[in-house]
Protein backbone atom coordinates (compact mmCIF):
# COMPACT_ATOMS: atom_id res chain seq x y z
CA UNK A 1 0.00 0.00 0.00
CA UNK A 2 1.51 3.39 -0.95
CA UNK A 3 2.01 6.00 1.76
CA UNK A 4 -0.95 8.20 2.58
CA UNK A 5 -0.84 11.58 0.85
CA UNK A 6 1.10 14.28 2.68
CA UNK A 7 -1.02 16.87 4.42
CA UNK A 8 -0.70 20.46 3.32
CA UNK A 9 -0.29 22.75 6.30
CA UNK A 10 -3.16 25.12 7.10
CA UNK A 11 -0.65 27.99 7.28
CA UNK A 12 0.45 27.36 3.70
CA UNK A 13 -3.15 27.24 2.52
CA UNK A 14 -4.00 30.42 4.36
CA UNK A 15 -1.02 32.16 2.79
CA UNK A 16 -2.20 31.00 -0.64
CA UNK A 17 -5.69 32.30 0.06
CA UNK A 18 -4.20 35.67 1.00
CA UNK A 19 -2.56 35.73 -2.43
CA UNK A 20 1.04 35.06 -1.39
CA UNK A 21 2.75 34.08 -4.67
CA UNK A 22 5.59 32.21 -2.97
CA UNK A 23 3.11 30.17 -0.97
CA UNK A 24 1.17 29.24 -4.10
CA UNK A 25 4.37 28.20 -5.82
CA UNK A 26 5.25 26.04 -2.81
CA UNK A 27 1.79 24.50 -2.91
CA UNK A 28 2.15 23.67 -6.62
CA UNK A 29 5.58 22.16 -6.02
CA UNK A 30 4.18 20.03 -3.18
CA UNK A 31 1.22 18.73 -5.21
CA UNK A 32 2.51 18.70 -8.79
CA UNK A 33 3.93 15.20 -9.05
CA UNK A 34 1.03 13.62 -7.18
CA UNK A 35 -1.47 15.36 -9.46
CA UNK A 36 0.51 14.39 -12.54
CA UNK A 37 0.89 10.76 -11.44
CA UNK A 38 -2.82 10.37 -10.70
CA UNK A 39 -3.64 12.07 -14.01
CA UNK A 40 -1.36 9.57 -15.79
CA UNK A 41 -3.07 6.63 -14.12
CA UNK A 42 -6.57 7.91 -14.76
CA UNK A 43 -5.98 8.89 -18.37
CA UNK A 44 -3.33 6.40 -19.49
CA UNK A 45 -1.47 9.04 -21.49
CA UNK A 46 1.38 11.45 -20.89
CA UNK A 47 -0.14 14.07 -23.18
CA UNK A 48 -3.43 13.85 -21.35
CA UNK A 49 -1.71 13.94 -17.96
CA UNK A 50 0.06 17.19 -18.88
CA UNK A 51 -3.20 18.79 -20.03
CA UNK A 52 -5.08 17.54 -16.97
CA UNK A 53 -2.35 18.78 -14.61
CA UNK A 54 -2.34 22.27 -16.08
CA UNK A 55 -6.14 22.38 -15.99
CA UNK A 56 -6.13 21.31 -12.34
CA UNK A 57 -3.73 24.09 -11.41
CA UNK A 58 -5.69 26.70 -13.35
CA UNK A 59 -8.75 25.62 -11.35
CA UNK A 60 -6.72 25.63 -8.15
CA UNK A 61 -5.39 29.11 -8.92
CA UNK A 62 -8.84 30.55 -9.38
CA UNK A 63 -10.83 28.52 -6.86
CA UNK A 64 -8.57 28.47 -3.84
CA UNK A 65 -10.48 31.37 -2.34
CA UNK A 66 -13.54 29.10 -2.23
CA UNK A 67 -11.77 26.48 -0.15
CA UNK A 68 -13.12 26.90 3.38
CA UNK A 69 -11.48 24.02 5.22
CA UNK A 70 -14.79 22.12 5.39
CA UNK A 71 -12.95 19.43 3.51
CA UNK A 72 -9.39 18.25 3.80
CA UNK A 73 -7.41 20.02 1.10
CA UNK A 74 -6.17 16.78 -0.44
CA UNK A 75 -9.77 15.50 -0.66
CA UNK A 76 -10.75 18.66 -2.47
CA UNK A 77 -7.71 18.48 -4.76
CA UNK A 78 -8.32 14.81 -5.62
CA UNK A 79 -11.93 15.64 -6.46
CA UNK A 80 -10.74 18.30 -8.90
CA UNK A 81 -8.22 15.89 -10.48
CA UNK A 82 -10.83 13.12 -10.81
CA UNK A 83 -13.40 15.46 -12.35
CA UNK A 84 -10.94 17.00 -14.78
CA UNK A 85 -9.59 13.58 -15.78
CA UNK A 86 -13.07 12.15 -16.32
CA UNK A 87 -14.11 15.19 -18.34
CA UNK A 88 -10.94 14.89 -20.38
CA UNK A 89 -11.57 11.24 -21.13
CA UNK A 90 -15.17 11.93 -21.97
CA UNK A 91 -14.10 14.65 -24.38
CA UNK A 92 -11.39 12.59 -26.05
CA UNK A 93 -13.42 9.34 -26.14
CA UNK A 94 -10.61 7.13 -27.13
CA UNK A 95 -8.19 4.70 -25.62
CA UNK A 96 -4.49 5.16 -25.68
CA UNK A 97 -2.38 2.95 -27.87
CA UNK A 98 0.57 1.00 -26.53
CA UNK A 99 2.93 3.06 -28.69
CA UNK A 100 1.54 6.30 -27.36
CA UNK A 101 1.55 5.22 -23.74
CA UNK A 102 4.90 3.50 -23.68
CA UNK A 103 7.14 6.61 -23.53
CA UNK A 104 5.40 7.74 -20.34
CA UNK A 105 6.53 4.78 -18.39
CA UNK A 106 10.07 4.77 -19.69
CA UNK A 107 11.09 8.23 -18.55
CA UNK A 108 14.75 7.92 -17.49
CA UNK A 109 14.00 9.84 -14.31
CA UNK A 110 11.56 7.15 -13.23
CA UNK A 111 13.75 4.13 -13.60
CA UNK A 112 14.76 4.05 -9.96
CA UNK A 113 11.11 4.03 -8.90
CA UNK A 114 10.01 1.12 -11.03
CA UNK A 115 8.50 -1.83 -9.24
CA UNK A 116 6.87 -3.68 -12.09
CA UNK A 117 8.89 -4.34 -15.21
CA UNK A 118 8.11 -1.63 -17.73
CA UNK A 119 6.21 -3.87 -20.12
CA UNK A 120 4.10 -5.36 -17.34
CA UNK A 121 3.41 -1.89 -15.91
CA UNK A 122 2.27 -0.69 -19.33
CA UNK A 123 -0.22 -3.57 -19.56
CA UNK A 124 -1.55 -2.85 -16.08
CA UNK A 125 -1.95 0.87 -16.81
CA UNK A 126 -3.66 0.23 -20.10
CA UNK A 127 -6.06 -2.20 -18.48
CA UNK A 128 -6.78 0.34 -15.73
CA UNK A 129 -7.36 3.08 -18.31
CA UNK A 130 -9.95 0.88 -20.06
CA UNK A 131 -12.08 0.47 -16.93
CA UNK A 132 -15.14 2.70 -16.62
CA UNK A 133 -14.54 5.80 -14.43
CA UNK A 134 -16.77 4.45 -11.65
CA UNK A 135 -14.19 1.70 -11.08
CA UNK A 136 -11.01 3.36 -12.37
CA UNK A 137 -11.10 6.38 -10.08
CA UNK A 138 -11.68 4.54 -6.76
CA UNK A 139 -9.01 1.96 -7.68
CA UNK A 140 -6.44 4.66 -8.45
CA UNK A 141 -7.25 6.60 -5.30
CA UNK A 142 -7.04 3.49 -3.12
CA UNK A 143 -4.20 1.41 -4.51
CA UNK A 144 -2.06 4.05 -6.19
CA UNK A 145 -2.67 7.07 -3.98
CA UNK A 146 -3.22 5.27 -0.67
CA UNK A 147 -6.46 7.02 0.33
CA UNK A 148 -8.65 5.30 2.92
CA UNK A 149 -12.16 4.12 2.07
CA UNK A 150 -13.51 7.06 4.04
CA UNK A 151 -11.33 9.55 2.15
CA UNK A 152 -12.40 8.10 -1.20
CA UNK A 153 -16.02 8.36 -0.08
CA UNK A 154 -15.33 12.05 0.64
CA UNK A 155 -13.67 12.69 -2.72
CA UNK A 156 -16.36 10.95 -4.74
CA UNK A 157 -19.30 11.80 -2.47
CA UNK A 158 -20.24 8.14 -2.11
CA UNK A 159 -20.95 5.95 0.91
CA UNK A 160 -18.08 3.78 2.15
CA UNK A 161 -20.19 0.73 1.28
CA UNK A 162 -20.40 1.87 -2.33
CA UNK A 163 -16.66 2.52 -2.36
CA UNK A 164 -16.05 -1.03 -1.06
CA UNK A 165 -18.25 -2.63 -3.72
CA UNK A 166 -16.76 -0.52 -6.53
CA UNK A 167 -13.26 -1.48 -5.42
CA UNK A 168 -14.25 -5.15 -5.39
CA UNK A 169 -15.91 -5.02 -8.80
CA UNK A 170 -13.11 -2.93 -10.30
CA UNK A 171 -10.40 -5.25 -8.98
CA UNK A 172 -12.30 -8.28 -10.23
CA UNK A 173 -12.66 -6.80 -13.72
CA UNK A 174 -9.04 -5.69 -13.77
CA UNK A 175 -7.82 -9.05 -12.44
CA UNK A 176 -9.74 -10.88 -15.16
CA UNK A 177 -8.10 -8.67 -17.82
CA UNK A 178 -4.67 -9.33 -16.36
CA UNK A 179 -5.12 -13.07 -15.88
CA UNK A 180 -2.32 -13.91 -18.32
CA UNK A 181 0.14 -11.51 -16.75
CA UNK A 182 2.79 -12.52 -14.22
CA UNK A 183 3.56 -10.21 -11.31
CA UNK A 184 6.90 -9.38 -12.82
CA UNK A 185 8.72 -7.23 -10.27
CA UNK A 186 12.20 -5.85 -10.61
Amino acid at each position, binding site marked *: MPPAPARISPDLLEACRR*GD*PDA*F*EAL*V*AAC*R*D*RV*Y*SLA*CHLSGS*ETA*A*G*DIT*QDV*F*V*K*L*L*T*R*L*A*QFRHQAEFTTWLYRIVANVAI*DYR*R*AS*RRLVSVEEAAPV*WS*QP*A*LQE*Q*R*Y*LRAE*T*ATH*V*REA*LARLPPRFRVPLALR*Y*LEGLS*YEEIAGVL*RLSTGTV*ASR*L*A*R*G*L*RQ*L*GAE*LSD*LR*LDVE
Partner: protein
Amino acid sequence: MKMFQRHVLDDLAAYTEGRLDPRRADRVRIHIAECEDCRGALDAVQRARRMLEALPAVAMPPGDAEKLTAALRRAGKRPRHVSPGLVAAAAALVMAVGGASYFLLAGIGPDLITEAGPAGLTPLASDLHQRLEAGNLDLDFESTDPARVRAWQRARRAPETSLAQPLVRAGWPAIRVRGAAVVDADGAAASVVAYEVDGRPVTLVTAREDDVPERPAGAWLAKRVYVSRDARGRSSLAWTTGGQTYAIVSTLPGVGQTACLVCHADQKFRERLDRAVFELALND
Protein backbone atom coordinates in the same frame (compact mmCIF):
# COMPACT_ATOMS: atom_id res chain seq x y z
CA MET B 1 -22.31 -24.59 -2.86
CA LYS B 2 -25.48 -24.37 -0.82
CA MET B 3 -28.14 -22.73 -2.92
CA PHE B 4 -29.31 -20.30 -0.23
CA GLN B 5 -25.90 -18.74 0.28
CA ARG B 6 -25.40 -15.37 -1.36
CA HIS B 7 -22.23 -14.66 -3.27
CA VAL B 8 -19.76 -12.38 -1.53
CA LEU B 9 -18.27 -10.65 -4.58
CA ASP B 10 -18.80 -7.08 -3.34
CA ASP B 11 -17.01 -7.87 -0.07
CA LEU B 12 -13.82 -9.20 -1.61
CA ALA B 13 -11.75 -6.00 -1.66
CA ALA B 14 -12.57 -5.22 1.97
CA TYR B 15 -11.97 -8.89 2.86
CA THR B 16 -8.45 -8.93 1.40
CA GLU B 17 -7.70 -5.73 3.29
CA GLY B 18 -8.98 -7.03 6.63
CA ARG B 19 -11.69 -4.37 6.78
CA LEU B 20 -14.67 -6.63 7.44
CA ASP B 21 -15.98 -7.23 10.94
CA PRO B 22 -15.19 -10.76 12.22
CA ARG B 23 -18.69 -12.12 11.61
CA ARG B 24 -18.82 -10.92 8.02
CA ALA B 25 -15.26 -12.04 7.37
CA ASP B 26 -16.20 -15.52 8.62
CA ARG B 27 -19.17 -15.60 6.27
CA VAL B 28 -16.89 -14.67 3.33
CA ARG B 29 -14.31 -17.28 4.34
CA ILE B 30 -16.90 -20.06 4.65
CA HIS B 31 -18.56 -19.08 1.39
CA ILE B 32 -15.29 -18.97 -0.54
CA ALA B 33 -14.37 -22.43 0.67
CA GLU B 34 -17.55 -23.76 -0.94
CA CYS B 35 -18.01 -21.51 -3.96
CA GLU B 36 -15.75 -21.87 -6.96
CA ASP B 37 -16.97 -18.66 -8.61
CA CYS B 38 -16.17 -16.50 -5.62
CA ARG B 39 -12.83 -18.27 -5.15
CA GLY B 40 -11.92 -17.37 -8.74
CA ALA B 41 -13.06 -13.82 -8.16
CA LEU B 42 -10.91 -13.62 -5.03
CA ASP B 43 -7.88 -14.68 -7.08
CA ALA B 44 -8.61 -11.94 -9.62
CA VAL B 45 -9.05 -9.34 -6.87
CA GLN B 46 -5.77 -10.29 -5.21
CA ARG B 47 -3.91 -10.36 -8.52
CA ALA B 48 -5.16 -6.93 -9.56
CA ARG B 49 -4.48 -5.44 -6.16
CA ARG B 50 -0.88 -6.72 -6.08
CA MET B 51 -0.24 -5.34 -9.56
CA LEU B 52 -1.73 -1.94 -8.84
CA GLU B 53 0.24 -1.63 -5.63
CA ALA B 54 3.41 -2.49 -7.50
CA LEU B 55 2.92 0.30 -10.02
CA PRO B 56 5.34 3.17 -9.50
CA ALA B 57 4.26 6.77 -9.18
CA VAL B 58 5.00 8.95 -12.20
CA ALA B 59 6.83 12.24 -11.84
CA MET B 60 6.05 15.12 -14.15
CA PRO B 61 8.89 15.41 -16.69
CA PRO B 62 11.28 18.11 -15.43
CA GLY B 63 10.86 20.29 -18.53
CA ASP B 64 7.06 20.33 -18.18
CA ALA B 65 7.28 21.03 -14.45
CA GLU B 66 9.52 24.04 -15.12
CA LYS B 67 7.16 25.31 -17.82
CA LEU B 68 4.20 24.99 -15.47
CA THR B 69 5.99 26.77 -12.63
CA ALA B 70 7.17 29.59 -14.90
CA ALA B 71 3.72 30.06 -16.40
CA LEU B 72 2.11 30.15 -12.95
CA ARG B 73 4.67 32.71 -11.84
CA ARG B 74 3.74 34.87 -14.81
CA ALA B 75 0.06 34.41 -14.07
CA GLY B 76 0.27 36.80 -11.14
CA LYS B 77 -0.60 34.16 -8.56
CA ARG B 78 -3.31 36.05 -6.73
CA PRO B 79 -6.06 33.48 -6.34
CA ARG B 80 -8.12 35.57 -3.93
CA HIS B 81 -8.95 38.51 -6.13
CA VAL B 82 -9.89 37.34 -9.57
CA SER B 83 -9.40 40.30 -11.87
CA PRO B 84 -9.69 40.63 -15.64
CA GLY B 85 -5.90 40.66 -15.60
CA LEU B 86 -5.80 37.34 -13.83
CA VAL B 87 -8.30 35.86 -16.24
CA ALA B 88 -6.08 36.95 -19.11
CA ALA B 89 -3.04 35.63 -17.28
CA ALA B 90 -4.69 32.29 -16.58
CA ALA B 91 -5.68 32.10 -20.23
CA ALA B 92 -2.07 32.80 -21.11
CA LEU B 93 -1.08 30.00 -18.76
CA VAL B 94 -3.34 27.55 -20.56
CA MET B 95 -1.84 28.54 -23.88
CA ALA B 96 1.72 28.65 -22.56
CA VAL B 97 1.53 25.09 -21.32
CA GLY B 98 -0.09 23.91 -24.51
CA GLY B 99 -3.79 23.51 -23.81
CA ALA B 100 -6.83 24.08 -25.96
CA SER B 101 -7.31 27.63 -27.17
CA TYR B 102 -10.80 28.15 -25.87
CA PHE B 103 -10.42 31.91 -26.19
CA LEU B 104 -10.01 31.76 -29.93
CA LEU B 105 -13.56 30.55 -30.37
CA ALA B 106 -15.82 33.17 -31.81
CA GLY B 107 -19.35 34.22 -30.94
CA ILE B 108 -21.30 35.42 -27.96
CA GLY B 109 -21.85 32.76 -25.34
CA PRO B 110 -24.45 32.57 -22.61
CA ASP B 111 -23.73 34.74 -19.60
CA LEU B 112 -23.27 32.28 -16.73
CA ILE B 113 -23.92 33.82 -13.33
CA THR B 114 -22.80 32.20 -10.08
CA GLU B 115 -24.25 34.79 -7.69
CA ALA B 116 -27.46 33.65 -5.98
CA GLY B 117 -30.35 34.61 -8.20
CA PRO B 118 -34.13 34.38 -8.02
CA ALA B 119 -35.22 30.88 -7.02
CA GLY B 120 -37.37 30.44 -10.13
CA LEU B 121 -38.08 26.78 -10.87
CA THR B 122 -34.85 25.46 -9.34
CA PRO B 123 -36.31 24.18 -6.01
CA LEU B 124 -39.16 22.45 -7.87
CA ALA B 125 -36.76 20.94 -10.43
CA SER B 126 -34.44 19.76 -7.66
CA ASP B 127 -37.31 18.08 -5.80
CA LEU B 128 -38.64 16.43 -8.97
CA HIS B 129 -35.14 15.26 -9.91
CA GLN B 130 -34.75 13.60 -6.52
CA ARG B 131 -38.17 11.95 -6.75
CA LEU B 132 -37.50 10.69 -10.26
CA GLU B 133 -34.14 9.28 -9.19
CA ALA B 134 -35.73 7.57 -6.18
CA GLY B 135 -38.52 6.15 -8.35
CA ASN B 136 -41.14 8.16 -6.42
CA LEU B 137 -42.48 10.00 -9.45
CA ASP B 138 -43.94 8.43 -12.58
CA LEU B 139 -43.73 10.12 -15.93
CA ASP B 140 -47.11 10.82 -17.55
CA PHE B 141 -45.74 9.99 -20.98
CA GLU B 142 -42.76 7.80 -21.78
CA SER B 143 -40.94 8.06 -25.08
CA THR B 144 -37.38 8.37 -26.31
CA ASP B 145 -38.55 10.35 -29.35
CA PRO B 146 -38.24 14.14 -28.72
CA ALA B 147 -40.84 14.89 -31.42
CA ARG B 148 -43.43 12.68 -29.73
CA VAL B 149 -42.71 14.27 -26.35
CA ARG B 150 -43.26 17.74 -27.84
CA ALA B 151 -46.46 16.58 -29.52
CA TRP B 152 -47.68 15.23 -26.19
CA GLN B 153 -46.90 18.55 -24.45
CA ARG B 154 -48.78 20.42 -27.20
CA ALA B 155 -51.79 18.13 -26.88
CA ARG B 156 -51.82 18.71 -23.13
CA ARG B 157 -51.49 22.51 -23.68
CA ALA B 158 -48.50 22.36 -21.34
CA PRO B 159 -45.42 24.59 -21.71
CA GLU B 160 -43.47 23.22 -24.65
CA THR B 161 -39.81 22.30 -24.64
CA SER B 162 -37.77 22.70 -27.83
CA LEU B 163 -36.26 19.23 -27.75
CA ALA B 164 -33.94 18.46 -30.63
CA GLN B 165 -33.26 15.11 -32.22
CA PRO B 166 -30.13 13.84 -30.43
CA LEU B 167 -26.92 14.02 -32.44
CA VAL B 168 -24.60 11.05 -32.53
CA ARG B 169 -21.07 12.30 -33.07
CA ALA B 170 -17.62 11.41 -31.83
CA GLY B 171 -16.96 13.32 -28.65
CA TRP B 172 -20.61 14.35 -28.32
CA PRO B 173 -22.45 13.25 -25.18
CA ALA B 174 -25.07 10.53 -25.58
CA ILE B 175 -28.49 12.09 -24.96
CA ARG B 176 -31.61 9.98 -24.45
CA VAL B 177 -35.01 11.42 -23.71
CA ARG B 178 -37.08 9.29 -21.28
CA GLY B 179 -40.42 11.08 -21.24
CA ALA B 180 -42.44 13.91 -19.75
CA ALA B 181 -44.94 14.88 -17.09
CA VAL B 182 -47.00 17.89 -16.12
CA VAL B 183 -46.86 19.03 -12.50
CA ASP B 184 -48.34 21.81 -10.42
CA ALA B 185 -46.10 24.83 -9.77
CA ASP B 186 -47.95 27.01 -7.27
CA GLY B 187 -51.23 26.71 -9.12
CA ALA B 188 -49.79 26.80 -12.65
CA ALA B 189 -48.80 23.97 -14.96
CA ALA B 190 -45.11 23.17 -15.37
CA SER B 191 -43.68 20.69 -17.88
CA VAL B 192 -41.12 18.15 -16.77
CA VAL B 193 -38.83 16.40 -19.22
CA ALA B 194 -36.67 13.54 -17.93
CA TYR B 195 -33.66 12.57 -19.97
CA GLU B 196 -30.15 11.19 -19.67
CA VAL B 197 -26.78 12.55 -20.72
CA ASP B 198 -24.11 9.85 -20.85
CA GLY B 199 -26.36 7.70 -18.67
CA ARG B 200 -26.79 10.35 -15.96
CA PRO B 201 -30.33 11.49 -15.20
CA VAL B 202 -31.29 15.09 -15.96
CA THR B 203 -34.53 16.87 -15.11
CA LEU B 204 -35.74 19.89 -17.08
CA VAL B 205 -38.70 21.91 -15.84
CA THR B 206 -40.43 24.60 -17.91
CA ALA B 207 -43.21 27.04 -16.99
CA ARG B 208 -44.72 30.14 -18.52
CA GLU B 209 -42.78 33.23 -17.46
CA ASP B 210 -45.84 34.96 -15.97
CA ASP B 211 -46.64 31.96 -13.79
CA VAL B 212 -43.36 32.21 -11.85
CA PRO B 213 -43.07 35.58 -10.09
CA GLU B 214 -39.52 35.10 -8.76
CA ARG B 215 -37.86 34.06 -11.99
CA PRO B 216 -34.45 34.88 -13.48
CA ALA B 217 -34.68 37.98 -15.67
CA GLY B 218 -34.57 37.44 -19.41
CA ALA B 219 -31.84 39.18 -21.39
CA TRP B 220 -31.29 40.46 -24.86
CA LEU B 221 -28.40 38.96 -26.89
CA ALA B 222 -26.58 36.69 -24.41
CA LYS B 223 -28.81 34.43 -22.34
CA ARG B 224 -28.35 34.99 -18.59
CA VAL B 225 -28.13 31.58 -16.96
CA TYR B 226 -27.88 31.23 -13.18
CA VAL B 227 -25.75 28.28 -12.13
CA SER B 228 -25.55 26.74 -8.67
CA ARG B 229 -24.62 23.50 -6.95
CA ASP B 230 -26.22 22.01 -3.86
CA ALA B 231 -24.65 20.04 -1.01
CA ARG B 232 -25.38 16.75 -2.83
CA GLY B 233 -23.35 17.78 -5.85
CA ARG B 234 -26.36 18.51 -8.04
CA SER B 235 -25.93 21.38 -10.47
CA SER B 236 -28.78 23.59 -11.54
CA LEU B 237 -29.11 25.95 -14.47
CA ALA B 238 -31.96 28.47 -14.49
CA TRP B 239 -32.94 31.06 -17.10
CA THR B 240 -35.83 32.83 -18.77
CA THR B 241 -36.32 33.29 -22.48
CA GLY B 242 -39.08 33.50 -25.07
CA GLY B 243 -41.87 33.92 -22.51
CA GLN B 244 -40.93 30.78 -20.58
CA THR B 245 -38.68 30.15 -17.60
CA TYR B 246 -36.58 27.00 -17.19
CA ALA B 247 -34.50 25.01 -14.70
CA ILE B 248 -32.29 21.98 -15.31
CA VAL B 249 -30.94 19.77 -12.51
CA SER B 250 -28.31 17.05 -12.87
CA THR B 251 -25.07 15.70 -11.46
CA LEU B 252 -23.27 16.20 -14.75
CA PRO B 253 -19.67 17.45 -14.72
CA GLY B 254 -18.83 21.13 -14.76
CA VAL B 255 -22.00 23.11 -14.23
CA GLY B 256 -24.06 20.47 -16.03
CA GLN B 257 -23.77 22.38 -19.28
CA THR B 258 -23.99 19.31 -21.49
CA ALA B 259 -27.64 19.06 -20.39
CA CYS B 260 -28.33 22.10 -22.62
CA LEU B 261 -27.59 20.01 -25.70
CA VAL B 262 -30.98 18.33 -25.41
CA CYS B 263 -32.36 21.43 -27.14
CA HIS B 264 -29.28 23.03 -28.71
CA ALA B 265 -28.06 20.38 -31.10
CA ASP B 266 -25.40 22.31 -32.94
CA GLN B 267 -21.65 22.49 -32.68
CA LYS B 268 -21.42 26.29 -32.51
CA PHE B 269 -23.67 26.47 -29.48
CA ARG B 270 -21.61 23.82 -27.77
CA GLU B 271 -18.41 25.73 -28.46
CA ARG B 272 -19.92 28.94 -27.12
CA LEU B 273 -21.09 27.07 -24.05
CA ASP B 274 -17.67 25.49 -23.50
CA ARG B 275 -16.09 28.90 -23.71
CA ALA B 276 -18.55 30.40 -21.25
CA VAL B 277 -18.00 27.55 -18.80
CA PHE B 278 -14.25 27.89 -19.11
CA GLU B 279 -14.44 31.60 -18.41
CA LEU B 280 -16.67 30.86 -15.46
CA ALA B 281 -14.08 28.42 -14.09
CA LEU B 282 -11.48 31.13 -14.33
CA ASN B 283 -13.68 33.66 -12.64
CA ASP B 284 -15.43 31.74 -9.89
